[in-house]
């Protein structure tokens, strides 16, 4: 027993001395729990998506249409966009014709058009048009759910108005008034309520449909109402997918890039950490005593990181093609460019970590912490639109955000090289900044000293 206790104490003493192990055991999980809690809105009273951009074009001058826009605007899940500022022009109201180009540019991924014929006059019903870019499956389903909630809360009035309009069309104004009076009289007589009050409600379109809409359902599933919901037949939502219609394997196109970037960050960062092992073994000392310079070592590490990352990404995309039918052939040039930019940024990140850390243990700790954090914040695990708005703003400072964005542009939007240029530019900027800081740190540090 005393032997076990002695060994137990030895384990404790070693553990206590290993700051990286200590941090990984206690501090990192606590920090991650805090950050993930913030990202996923744990303990927040109003959880759920925040500020998903939704363009709204209202072509109808009916007050109910304006009410529908107000309902959408009140929904926290959406950030309603009703105006646009064309290049070099003044801000103006969005028009239906503006929507598709802006969606292709990813300014917003969802748009709803309230047409001038919102309320049918020939037969009872409500017309809406939904345009979508379902590049993210979870986000798309969420948007549909939110739209359903908003539309259905507003539909009873719309439907009632539609019925009144239909009656007027079929029976004429006098016939419609007579019908309303008869119905109001019957209700008053049957239920003992005030006839004039009932008549006013009927003329305003309130037929009591709100009680029907209180039933569970997900009628706005892509614009098709659920079977069994009586309103489903009356609400006509024309759904149009603007981007990604021809993508062969949507789920793979959405996810493979996100998975790949996390593993890329881990593998390339590990490569930079080998600098510490080379120093410990005296290899850097041996290299420096020959004609090798620190810059040679750093650039060779970086370039190998880029090549390794490039090969790793291409291998993962090939696996994506074999397993899920991911289309990597149609836009191979763009994919190669984007992969190289991603690998460069990740390799630069690895060099930055190696330059900041003092030991390989510290570098390993930092890598684990930052890669997980960046993957989470950058949208590799859940869509960025599900995070609080403040976190969404932080997301753009992470490598995964831009890598995922770039791969989505390649796989989902089939973007041209010119279209990819801004994203590639951002990643090249990250690479340049990371390498500059790394070089500066290495010059000031002791890694190349014996």
């Amino acid at each position, binding site marked *: 027993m005393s032997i076990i206790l002695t060994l137990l104490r030895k384990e404790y003493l070693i553990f206590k001395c290993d700051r990286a192990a200590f941090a990984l055991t206690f501090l990192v999980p606590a920090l991650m729990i805090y950050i993930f809690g913030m990202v996923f809105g744990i303990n927040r009273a109003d959880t759920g998506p925040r500020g998903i951009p939704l363009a709204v074009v209202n072509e109808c001058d009916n007050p109910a249409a304006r009410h529908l826009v107000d309902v959408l605007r009140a929904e926290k899940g959406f950030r309603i966009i009703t105006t646009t500022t064309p290049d070099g022009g003044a801000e103006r109201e969005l028009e239906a014709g503006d929507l598709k180009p802006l969606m292709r540019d990813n300014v917003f991924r969802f748009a709803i058009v309230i047409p001038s014929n919102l309320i049918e006059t020939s037969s009872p019903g409500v017309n809406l048009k939904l345009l979508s870019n379902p590049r993210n499956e979870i986000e798309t389903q969420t948007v549909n759910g939110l739209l359903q909630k908003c539309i259905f809360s507003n539909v009873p009035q719309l439907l009632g108005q539609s019925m009144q309009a239909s009656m007027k069309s079929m029976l004429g104004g006098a016939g419609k008034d007579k019908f309303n009076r008869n119905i109001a009289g019957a209700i008053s007589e049957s239920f003992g309520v005030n006839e004039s009050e009932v008549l006013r409600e009927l003329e305003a379109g309130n037929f009591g449909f709100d009680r029907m809409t209180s039933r569970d359902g997900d009628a706005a599933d892509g614009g098709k109402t659920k079977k069994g919901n009586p309103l489903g037949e009356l609400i006509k939502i024309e759904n149009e997918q603007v981007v990604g219609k021809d993508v062969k394997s949507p789920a793979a196109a959405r996810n493979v890039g996100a998975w790949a970037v996390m593993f890329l960050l881990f593998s390339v960062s590990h490569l930079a950490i080998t600098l510490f092992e080379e120093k*410990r*073994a*005296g*290899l850097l*000392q*041996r*290299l*420096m*005593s*020959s*004609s*090798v310079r620190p810059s040679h070592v750093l650039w060779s590490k970086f370039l190998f990181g880029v090549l390794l990352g490039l090969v790793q990404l291409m291998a993962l995309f090939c696996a994506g093609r074999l397993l899920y039918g991911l289309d990597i052939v149609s836009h191979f040039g763009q994919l190669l460019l984007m992969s190289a930019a991603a690998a460069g940024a990740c390799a630069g990140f690895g060099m930055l970590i190696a330059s900041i850390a003092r030991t390989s243990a510290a570098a390993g700790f930092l890598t684990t912490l930052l890669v997980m954090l960046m993957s989470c914040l950058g949208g590799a695990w859940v869509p960025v639109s599900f995070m609080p708005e403040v976190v969404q703003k932080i997301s753009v400072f992470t490598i995964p955000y831009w890598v995922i964005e770039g791969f989505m542009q390649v796989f989902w939007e089939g973007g041209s090289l010119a279209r990819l240029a801004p994203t590639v530019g951002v990643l090249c900027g990250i690479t340049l900044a990371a390498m500059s800081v790394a070089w500066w740190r290495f010059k000031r540090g002791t890694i190349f*000293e*014996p």
Partner: protein
Amino acid sequence: MLSIRSITKRFGGFTALDEVSLEISPGECFGLLGPNGAGKTTLMSLIAGLRKPDGGMISPGKSGARASLGLVPQNVALYTDLTAGQNLEIFGKLQGLRGATLRERVGEALEAVQLSERRKDVVKTFSGGMQRRLNLAAALLHRPGLLLCDEPTVGVDPQSRNAIFDYLGQLNRDGLTIIYSTHYMEEAARLCSRIGIIDHGKILALGTLDELLALLPFEDEIIFPNTSETKLFAERMAPHGKLVSENGAQYRFFPQLKLSEFYRRAEELNLPARLFAQQRPTLEAVFLHLTGRTLRDTK
């Protein structure tokens, strides 16, 4: 000639080298003997141009020295996941060797350190001694004019150590200048034509083995065990020479009286002559004389 003039190197408030001056002649095998932390590795790194001195000058300088310099670091500085051949090819290429010359030099180096048959084996499967031999070979591919060996036999078995010494001896006879740092006096005595004793960043003595031994005020060294029987004798002998207790296990005595008198006094206490091992003083005694400590005490 390598000329080191008043070199000083500080790390914060700690002075690792303090006004060290040395002249190393071409073809010389110079030993740098001192305990751990004496400043040997710092001096080696300054000669190799890996660090800049805070004061003084080394001639030829960094750029001139590098081309004709081979460094055998204290650690086994090899890519242990690669084969012996791959390691030497990499280091050879970094030294500017190419094509047939590179292949030839790699073959020669492996032959010289008796590792030809293990050329295609991964280094991590080698014994410590084999790794040390390959470590040495990697520094010689470009046929440097000056070889810096920084404690190259640490943790090496006697057989491999002998193989390394034989090889270094041969290289030195062929004209290679060697600076060999060690804390093993036997190594310095066996290999080096001239030795510098260094401690606390200062060269305490410099010369051939005989010149260093001549610094001693005594001619003999007697070693005897530290037991209850010998303790009284040791106390009585202390005023008649220099007495050092080594780790409480044995005494090292440098008598300043005649040996016949020493043994007579031992006999008075019934201590048999077989307890006493008499030898010529070594570099250890020189170090002790200069510093008041043994090399072993300071490791």
